[in-house]
């Protein structure tokens, strides 16, 4: 969604200098609905070429799990991009937070809730450091966070070797965590009873032993949706949202209007780091382990998703919903090929072409609908 709201208050007298537009045109003006067009294209493509199992309930869940993890990062990245900055250290932050979380649980034997708090606080602090360096030095965030990409990735390796005594994989997290409602909030699936009930009534597919093929909605998907909703609300309906658009659109103008630019940017960096930490916690609890390569190039994918979703790299424009659909498109394209008959050597050609097509189509539709230019 954009800072330019579309749902205008109905004004008393219509202005003769405004053409009437239809409801559809009105809706399509929203940049995130352009991303929906891209999604539709991609889905249509797979509908024609892929195995039917891709569109079964379990196929959809299979795609949503990685897409939601990417999406959490992408939404945070797009907020930061709207605010005019980049964070290239997201991927490394996932690995680093994973290490902190894993070490807190195993090496230091902390309970889950303390470990989560420690991880989040540390991530927020690192993000704030990133932000403060960018603000104080006025260096581009690209180069500052790039340095942190390397530094955090390196620290993760060193830390893992220290924590495990020589391995690059930290294990045994499942054993120390045990089960509990808090764990359930970060890993596994939700709505299990519902899915069981559906399976019993043959409303969804099940295995021969009666267990439903899909036992529930992965919690990461719920987080993903929740974060998309909250981020959208913040962007469009709150003062903070207004400030985010402003600092990205023109930091000087924003500062001159009394917006605390530095505070907003630092907050966004901290938020992005926290999103990375959340993804780290989810994946570590799901996989029961963490390793030195976690989150590799995720910063890249997150930015891709945000850009597919219509965010401008130069700041000041974009939406959380766009990033939401961007992440789904990216997940769909990268997993989808597996369901088709194409030779896997062509994977990257395919991925690239689909991304390009999705964005072109999105752009084409938007231009068609909003008129010339």
């Amino acid at each position, binding site marked *: 969604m954009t800072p330019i709201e579309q749902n205008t208050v109905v004004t008393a007298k219509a202005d003769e200098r405004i053409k009437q537009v239809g409801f559809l045109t009105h809706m399509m003006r929203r940049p995130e609905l352009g991303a929906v067009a891209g999604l539709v294209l991609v889905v249509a493509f797979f509908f024609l070429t892929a195995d039917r*199992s891709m569109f079964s309930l379990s196929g959809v869940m299979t795609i949503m799990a*990685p897409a939601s993890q990417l999406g959490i990062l992408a939404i945070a990245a797009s907020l930061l991009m709207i605010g005019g900055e980049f964070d290239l250290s997201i991927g490394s932050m996932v690995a680093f937070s994973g290490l902190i979380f894993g070490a807190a649980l195993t090496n230091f034997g902390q309970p889950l809730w303390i470990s989560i708090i420690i991880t989040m606080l540390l991530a927020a602090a690192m993000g704030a450091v990133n932000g403060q360096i960018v603000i104080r030095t006025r260096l581009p965030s690209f180069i500052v966070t790039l340095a942190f990409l390397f530094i955090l990735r390196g620290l993760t390796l060193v830390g893992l070797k220290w924590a495990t005594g020589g*391995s*690059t994989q930290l294990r045994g997290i499942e054993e120390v965590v045990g089960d509990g409602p808090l764990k359930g909030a970060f890993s596994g699936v939700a709505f299990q009873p519902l899915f069981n009930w559906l399976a019993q009534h043959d409303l969804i597919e099940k295995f021969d032993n009666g267990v439903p093929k899909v036992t529930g909605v992965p919690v990461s998907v719920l987080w993903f949706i929740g974060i998309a909703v909250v981020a959208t609300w913040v962007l469009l309906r709150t003062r903070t949202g207004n400030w985010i658009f402003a600092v990205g659109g023109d930091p000087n103008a924003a500062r001159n209007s009394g917006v605390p630019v530095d505070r907003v940017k630092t907050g966004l960096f901290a938020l992005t780091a926290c999103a990375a930490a959340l993804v780290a916690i989810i994946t570590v609890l799901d996989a029961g382990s963490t390793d*030195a390569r976690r989150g590799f190039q*995720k910063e890249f994918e997150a930015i891709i998703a945000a850009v597919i979703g219509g965010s401008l790299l130069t700041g000041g424009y974009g939406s959380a919903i766009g990033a939401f659909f961007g992440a789904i498109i990216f997940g769909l394209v990268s997993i989808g090929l597996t369901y088709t008959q194409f030779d*896997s050597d062509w994977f990257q050609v395919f991925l690239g072409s689909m991304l390009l097509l999705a964005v072109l189509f999105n752009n084409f539709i938007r231009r068609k609908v909003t008129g010339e230019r």
Partner: protein
Amino acid sequence: QVAVAKDIKIIAVTHGQANDPFWSVVKNGVTAGAKDAGVQVDYRAPETFDMVAMSQLIDAAVNQKPDGLIVSIPDSSALGPSIKKAVAAGIPVISINSGSDVSKELGALLHVGQDEYGAGKAAGEKLKEMGGKTGICINQEVGNVSLDLRCKGFADGFGGEVKVLPVSNDPADVRAKVKAALSSNTAIDTVMALGASTAGEPALDAVKDAGLVGKVNVATFDLSAGFLKAVAAGEAAFAIDQQQFLQGYLPVVFLANDAKYGLIPGGNVPSGPNLITKDKAAQVVDLSAKGIR
């Protein structure tokens, strides 16, 4: 001409990054060898699978005139000139892991390791023996020649239909792709992963998700504690151990002895393959968790 041990400096240049689970074990071997032999060793590798960068690292190593050089040779054309330069400069060279075929030709003293193609072939044959007909090979770094060779060896040994599944380093992505492959092609009965923690463990999860435990054989290159537990529990078929710890450890000791006393073995040392199956898996878990196997 006995040299003082602590002045002996050996440099290892490989194509595997320090954070790659396989190569981190090699590096641990190197470190242990250095400690045992009382010499100083540097381990270096390019940041990605990059032959040009690796040859430049070898050049930089030669420039420091070490008492011994350990290299892996995944591309003899690209690395040959640099290795020859080292030999010309009078530096003893031992090749490890890949390049057993060209090692002698380039002037290396000997080769420690087992080539990726051979290991893949051995695994393929074993899985064929276990009744596999249709397989997938999960490659987390397509274009990395040594990983491509593993897949190729597997395909040749396996004989049946093999499809390569390119994935990333992200467990959620691997898991989803394997699950997608299993559900779109129900004929698949064999899954070969090229790395235990990055590809093997998520592949196991995917097989579990798809409710195919026992129906699909999962095997992996290299070891990880998690995968070994699954092997011990009978959920996975086996893991191929190249015993890469030795690929790091032995050359250091050999080169140290060469520098100190002029002693060196007369031939190549095969470090693997060693198939870890259900019976052996339990013993190896702890060592694997410490980065030794």
